[in-house]
């Protein structure tokens, strides 16, 4: 029976959201291949959580328990997964294109003498093989790729694949693959001070431009960002005016971001700014100028005064979140 494997990602005993996205995507692929989804969970004290993955279409879980796996290391994880894959011979291995996934994927591909499609935004099955779509050249071009050898490995971009509950319970199996020396070790973890989310990793970004009028104007954006757990970005105009630091700049000469949701407030939408956020999944424009170019690039356009609309929006979203 063909196998589609999911490499779960956990932190501190809990699965990260991307695990459910990858599992859901794996189930779809498995259905088309007439295969079953097996999840590989590495961690410590994860045994209890494993069965839950069944909700997302996982049939079997290989649970690799141990202190060596509590926190991610390249060596422990890649060696363990490779050992299991050598035995289980999956056709496809999927993982999240998270920081961990980007560190792990290439190593795994080399170990298994195959290749990997990184940061995919779409998966399909064609002629019994995986066809993955991934951005290249900073999103200027998209590539449909296939991997000629098994296992076909693909890492999936976060916040793109929907989480689908297809129901069921997974059978959990303990696995103890032999691993060798762990050469690169984590000696310290410095948790981030609560607050600032890195723009290039943010799932939601609230961004302000010339229309913010001054540095104080950004307060309404920070309030909105707070409720959305978003990062706050800025256009070049706002940075040039000294209202925000250059590290907050989104655009051609700033950062290129790929969030799930980008809310552009008081931003005209110059092409240089678009170059930095055009790949956002959902774009909202709030600008009182109905002719601002940003409106033609946005999915949702609000023609109105952001200083009136944004605080109200914050309230509305609070209500929605409270309602659960």
């Amino acid at each position, binding site marked *: 029976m063909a196998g589609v494997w999911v490499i779960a990602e956990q932190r501190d005993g809990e699965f990260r959201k991307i695990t459910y996205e990858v599992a859901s995507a794996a189930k779809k692929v498995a259905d088309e291949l007439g295969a079953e989804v097996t999840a590989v969970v590495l961690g410590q004290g994860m045994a209890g959580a494993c069965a839950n993955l069944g909700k997302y279409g996982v049939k079997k879980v290989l649970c690799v328990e141990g202190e060596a796996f509590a926190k991610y290391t390249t060596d422990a994880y890649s060696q363990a997964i490779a050992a299991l894959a050598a035995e289980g011979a999956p056709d496809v291995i999927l993982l999240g294109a998270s920081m961990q996934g980007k560190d792990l994927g290439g190593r795994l591909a080399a170990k298994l003498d195959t290749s990997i499609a990184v940061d995919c935004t779409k998966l399909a099955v064609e002629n019994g093989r995986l066809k993955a779509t991934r951005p290249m050249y900073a999103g200027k071009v998209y590539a449909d790729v296939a991997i000629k050898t098994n296992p076909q490995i693909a890492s999936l971009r976060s916040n793109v694949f929907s989480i689908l509950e297809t129901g069921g319970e997974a059978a959990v199996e303990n696995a103890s693959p032999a691993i060798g020396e762990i050469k690169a070790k984590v000696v310290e973890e410095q948790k981030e001070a609560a607050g600032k989310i890195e723009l290039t990793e943010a799932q939601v970004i609230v961004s302000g431009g010339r229309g913010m009028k001054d540095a104080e104007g950004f307060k309404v954006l920070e309030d909105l960002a707070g409720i959305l757990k978003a990062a706050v970005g800025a256009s070049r105009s706002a940075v*040039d*005016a000294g209202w925000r630091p*250059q590290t907050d700049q989104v655009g*051609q*000469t700033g950062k290129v971001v790929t969030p799930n949701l980008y809310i552009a407030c008081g931003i005209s939408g*110059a092409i240089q700014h678009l*170059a930095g956020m055009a790949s956002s999944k959902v774009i909202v424009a709030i600008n009182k100028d109905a002719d601002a170019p940003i409106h*033609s690039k946005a999915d949702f356009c609000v023609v109105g005064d952001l200083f009136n609309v944004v605080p109200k929006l914050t309230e509305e979203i609070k209500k929605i979140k409270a309602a659960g």
Partner: protein
Amino acid sequence: MAERDVMEVDVLFVGGGVSSLSGAIHLRNLIEKHNQKVAEQGEGKTLDEVMIAVLEKGPYLGAHSLSGAVMDPVALKELVPDFSEKGAPLEAEVTGEEVCYLTKSGRLKAPIVPPPLDNHGFYVISLSKFTEWMGTLAEEKGIDIFPGFAGVEVLYDGDKVAGVGTGDKGIDAHGEKKSNYEPGIDLRAKVTVFGEGPRGSLTKSLVKKLNLDEGRNPQNYVVGVKEVWELPEGRFAPGKVIHTMGYPHKSDTYGGGFIYGMKNNRVSVGLLTGLDYADPYLDPHREFQKFKLHPMVAGILKDGKIVQYGAKTAPVGGYWSVPKLAFDGGVLVGDSAGLFVSQKIKGVHAAMKSGMLAAEAILQALIKEDYSAAQLGSYEDALRQSYVGKDLYKCRNFHQAFQGGLWMAMVKAGFQYILGGKILSDRLPAEADFKHQKTVAEVYGTAAPSEEQVGNLKFDGERTFDKETDVYHSGTIHEEHQPAHLKIPDLNICYTTCVEKFQNPCLRFCPANVYEMKMDENTGKKGMHLNFSNCLHCKTCDVKDPFENINWVPPEGGGGPKYSVV
């Protein structure tokens, strides 16, 4: 102050354009021939290990090269007879030509092509691509090319030019050294050739210091604003050449449009605007966008896509504005020497030939070990005798003839060409472009002309583009953390006399939106803001500021446009 490093070269070419590259290549060829001759004839001294260096501020050769262009291949054939085998990137041989006069909605086609604009046997080229190709030839010949380095000062030994100093890199916006600070060096040379293109920054200071323009007319300029478009298959034939006059320019504005067919369904479309215009609200970029909306042009560009944008000045003062070209330790070539033949709209061949003639004089200088003005002056004599000199003389007064407006000019220009240059008085006077600036009140009769009077245009983003969008298509980029390279000696003028009389024309004449008056919402006052990283290095501001209050100096080397097909 720390001593700068010194690097000695034999011959230094400042500016990596076609004049310098032609000079460098030709010089290398001449040296080879000379050495061969010495070996064969057993007499004379060989010139060994002559280091020829080319300094270029752009990130690669061709990055800052922009022109129409239709090139007369005469110089190319002399320099590289096997240019075809060597893969010279010529777009197309000129096949069909048209000269027309445009009205707002129509056009009058000239029954015959005026002789100066007869381009038969010439080639449509992309100057950027052509320059890049010449660079590969130069490198093959062992010429040392240094892209990414800007010459910021001329070095002198007394009154003798001794080389050029390059700019520091890694200085932040406040003038402080960054962690990767790299000081510039002094490039010292026996001969320095200045091929910086139109309104070269070093050339400007050099001409002033050595009085090279004594007794000459000041130089006049046009600014060319252009785009390369990709069109539907077969829309516009490669090699088809159209020149236009009239719309959108009013009759007292010098200039005209061009449309040149390139290969692969690309077309070069542009508008030249004389910088001696009077209207302080004139915006060369905006006029070019209007040009594209003219039914004839719009029809050609329909369903096409912009590929690249750029702008650059060109010297049109002609014969009477050419300064003294040779001085102790150096020469001027190409557009820096003002050798553009404006009546024919041709400068590439002149630039190349001037480089080659300079090389011939430099060879002799190297042999005789005499780098004086007298020795190098043979270059200037040779130039006068050459087809470049003859053309310049024949077309002298062409630009000056336009001072009375278009119609008078056409008459004068027509006669002038037929009569081999002689008109009523042999040399027509000329003034620097900025002096022609009239006030808003003078032109509009009011201090606050309406949008319509001024001729403002709303850009649709498909056929016409605002400056920011066009700048994006020029690939221009600069190191963000550096001081602004547009030096404004007296900012106060901007807020007082200039705004009163002219309402800050820099906001309009810069084709890259570098100059912006930003309203501070809190104080209600406007302040001059420089978007210097948009700069296209076109030099319009250096020419046109009515108070000579903008001094363009090179930003950190490697910055600027990234032209490839203009």
